[in-house]
């Protein structure tokens, strides 16, 4: 059962997620605050309804719907927004390097450029949302990405976008502010579109989770991005 976000741990001024990855104490505190989303947040009814016909049903998340009683204020939302901002910074930097690599031209190259530009607009929107809530936007982390071949990069992009989509999905139920939620949903489905597009490029499934996309919690996502932090 996940804990609702609590007021006790206000977001750090800047670079929070970057620090969290390195600082186990902070990370645990942060995760406790933001709630352990992911599998446990997934609606039990979907698991019941889809039986064994989808991958979703095989996740160990047969329990616990999300708490509906959480009443934290902007603190939880700020932490979630800064977490998303950090991921968007990394995606933006990644696409910048991919474009600079020159591996992709023509129609695919144009899509890659579009996606990079869209990640950049996510960064701007999230920074704006953090400021609007009275917070301090997380500092831009320094990324490092292996860019060795078109095939490898496309596969990495597919992985990154799937991770991004599952990260937003994992946080959605914990967002308190309706405006923030509306914006997160508007971004979430775009990450999904990116992921599906890259799926066609690398000849992988456009719906790797089947009918029900699987959320990822913060610790899973942070562990997955850690290798890409310089």
């Amino acid at each position, binding site marked *: 059962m996940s804990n609702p976000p609590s007021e006790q741990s206000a977001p750090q001024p800047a670079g929070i997620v970057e620090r969290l990855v390195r600082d186990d104490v902070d990370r645990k505190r942060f995760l406790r605050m933001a709630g352990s989303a992911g599998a446990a947040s997934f609606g039990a009814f979907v698991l019941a309804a889809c039986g064994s*016909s989808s991958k979703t049903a095989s996740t160990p998340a047969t329990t616990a719907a999300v708490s509906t009683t959480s009443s934290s204020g902007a603190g939880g939302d700020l932490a979630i927004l800064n977490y998303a901002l950090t991921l968007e910074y990394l995606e933006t930097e990644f696409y910048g390097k991919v474009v600079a690599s020159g591996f992709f031209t023509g129609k695919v190259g144009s899509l890659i450029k579009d996606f990079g530009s869209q990640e950049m607009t996510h960064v701007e929107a999230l920074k*704006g949302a953090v400021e609007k809530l009275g917070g301090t936007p997380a500092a831009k982390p320094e990324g490092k990405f292996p860019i060795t071949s078109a095939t490898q990069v496309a596969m990495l992009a597919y992985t990154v976008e799937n991770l991004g989509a599952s990260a937003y999905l994992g946080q959605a139920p914990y967002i308190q502010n309706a405006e923030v939620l509306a914006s997160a949903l508007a971004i979430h489905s775009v990450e999904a*579109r990116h992921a599906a*597009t890259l799926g066609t490029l690398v000849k992988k499934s456009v719906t790797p989770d089947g009918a029900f996309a699987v959320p990822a919690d913060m610790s899973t996502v942070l562990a997955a991005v850690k290798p890409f932090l310089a």
Partner: protein
Amino acid sequence: MTRASFILRGALATGAVYGATAVAPFVSQALAATGGGDAEILNFALTLEYLESDFYTVKGKQVGLSGQAKSYATLFGAEEEAHVSALTAAIKQLGGTPVAKPTFVFPTTNESSFLALASVLENTGVGAYNGAGPSLKSKAVLASAGSIVQTEARHAAAIDLLIGQSPTPNQGFDRPLTKAEVLAKAGPLIKA
């Protein structure tokens, strides 16, 4: 700072649009979306899922698809059917009564017009869920709706790529749709 120049250009272009007030345009849309309780919202979603499911599994066969169009129709049809089952169960769990499956009429006669309509339906589905999301009271229902909308967005992108359209028709932010906007697209396809 190692951003490519396109990002800097993009920042200049979007700086005026996004930034501090970025969320505003979406919110007024989304919050104005669907009234009613969670069961009512899910019944609206169920109608759309019935529509999509029928479109892929019944109309898809009638039209006679081939190649990638056929593969997508088979896969997406099965996934829409799973959404129908999940939503039906969720509505019952909330104490509501799931709507009966309507009868649909799809004005498509060939693969090309089928795929064009598929694009409209999937993109409308994304906007419908995104519009309704902030109105949902139950966080568990929201989590499930989010799980479904991600799949709809993936379908939309795959279909759009197949027909040479942009997989991100709304650029960086998918526009939430109001109930009225969704009905304007889907309503004419519902016969009874």
